């Protein structure tokens, strides 16, 4: 299978992620879309690694996975707190810094 396919798939996944972050108001969906973007990048990295026969990019992928896991745990706990406070996970409710 030619590697362009992987590239286009990665691009599509990334765009879906971006659109999801922009369009949705549900905090969990937004987090998921961010994950989607990260993984799109991972896919891209691995593809390029394969294309150029170079292992550096794959190591980066591991780092990104670790960071993503950490990010999700923080993000989810923020969402939980937010739900406790407002009984909603709609990000547009959070438009005030005070109170």
């Amino acid at each position, binding site marked *: 299978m030619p590697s362009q396919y992987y590239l286009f798939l990665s691009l599509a996944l990334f765009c879906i992620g971006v659109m999801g972050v922009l369009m949705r*108001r549900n905090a969990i969906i937004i987090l998921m879309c961010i994950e989607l973007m990260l993984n799109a990048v991972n896919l891209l990295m691995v593809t390029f690694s394969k294309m150029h026969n170079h292992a550096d990019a794959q190591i980066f992928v591991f780092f990104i996975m670790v960071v993503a896991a950490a990010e999700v745990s923080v993000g989810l706990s923020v969402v939980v707190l937010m739900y406790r406070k407002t009984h909603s996970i709609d990000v547009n409710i959070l438009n*005030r810094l005070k109170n």
Partner: protein
Amino acid sequence: MIQVAWLVPLFPLLGFLITGLGRNKLGALSGWIASFAVLASFLVSLGIFLEVQHLHGEGEEGTGASIIVPVYEYINSGTMTAQISFQIDALSSLFLLVITGIGFLIHIYSISYMSHDDGYGKFFAYLNLFIFSMLLLVMGANYVLMFVGWEGVGLCSYLLIGFWYKNTEYTNAAKKAFVMNRIGDLGFLIGILMLFSKFNTLNFTDLQAAISSGQISVGYLTAIALCFFIGATGKSAQIPLFTWLPDAMAGPTPVSALIHAATMVTAGIYMVTRSHFIYTLAPVAQQVILIIGLATALIAATIATMQNDIKKVLAYSTVSQLGFMFMALGAGAYVAAVFHVVTHAFFKALLFLGSGSVIHAMGGEQDIRKMGGLKSSMKITYLTFLIGCVAIAGIPPLSGFFSKDEILMSVFKLGQYGKIFWVLGMLAALMTAYYMFRLLFVTFHGEFRGTADQKHHLHESPALMTIPLVILALLSAFGGMLGLPAITGAPHLLEEFLEPVLKTSLVAHPMVNALSHNAEIVLMGLAVMIAIMGISMGWFYYKKYNADSEPKGLAKMAQGKWYFDEIYHAIIVKPLLVLSKFMERWIEKSGIDALVNGVGKLIQASGDRLRYLQSGLVGFYLFMMVLGIILLFALQIWIL
């Protein structure tokens, strides 16, 4: 005694702290504490003075006759060191005696004179601080310490002139004195820095050795000498900075006697004498000093002849006498200058204290047109004042004759121009005799012209005031014995005493065409005749004084002080004010302020607009983020 020389300034400093801190609690005691502080340093000075005489001949080449007493080193940074150390030699020990001795008499006098004043304690604190600063100035072994004392006396002068601070005119006089002094101080400071940049030291002894070895151009030395002289014109009230001294009479009379006659104004003389090794190598600067001194002596004397305020007459007389001293310095006759400093300190302190006694009796009146006939009710004041007048007029054997004669003689010996200078100096001496006796006759002779109330109140001052007068009168009468002229055959004590300090300059300045004894006698005879002429002129015009008609022409100009104040006001003060107004309006308000305010306003206004971007909608923020990233990509791809 010399090794504990630091005691001399310590006592007045302690006195200042005690009287200053306890000024509300000590009451009448503070005057006595202050006086005894000065008395203590006088006694130490006396001990030092007696010991210094034994230093003579020891050590080598002029500098050996001084002892440096180190106290404390407060700056030590690279090549720069600044020490508190005192130089004790003939010159400084003589000045110490004059300062503390006359200072003590004036303190005693002030106890009585100021007894009814609200600021009694404060007054003595200031007086002691002044004595302390003056002692620092005189004892300092380097220019830095001298400058500290120099500034200190300027400060105390300001504080004491404006002592009665509720009177706006007096505070203005104080400010004027301070500003005038500052102008001079700047010159002095520049001179010091020029010296330091060349020699990396400011100790007198090191500098003298370095300069005398002749590694420096005459031009540079002349510049330094002139800078120092600017400082001296400020402190010692010479043209062009003399106008502060007559105004300084706003202070209490003992202050006028102490600061503006006997001690502070002689700081300039002391400084030039101390720097004799510079001036000896800078003949151009000496010429300038000679001419300025002569001009000051003449102009101040003419003004003094037309003043009607008893203290103003004495103030201009001081300026004129200081002019004489500078003439001597310009002629290289340092001993004569110091001699005149000493005798002038005696009789001018006497005259000022005498005038204070008069003012005291007249209930604060200072205008001599409203006095007259005081001699019958104030015998001691009259007699002592008379002795002072005779001394300053130059009648032998009183002290003023010898010192003034020595100055004029040294000027006469200066070669062809010396004769002209001598004639002009004689003219100033003539006027001196004239205005002093005018003052004496108008004040003490004739009919009393004051109110009946004042006449009833007339009285001799208490003993605390008259005793200092009597002592000073004795000193004025016999002070001349310090320096008898050569023809009497007696030794010139002062010259012998100062010779080790000034040796290099005295040798470098051989008196050209020294006079024969006959010529000297003729000159002396002329001087005496001139003095008698001045006195008889005063007698002729003022023995029966009644309120004068308005002076006209030149006399009016002299009464108006040759309009120096007005001229300074027109050419310096006014343009400065206009310039300041312009600066304030256009540079400060429209320039700097507008710029600073403009920055603030710009940020405020832009913040006001940009505030709307901060909507609080997360979606919007994310959208802007993505947009930003896309823009960055676009930038990367198409533009860069």
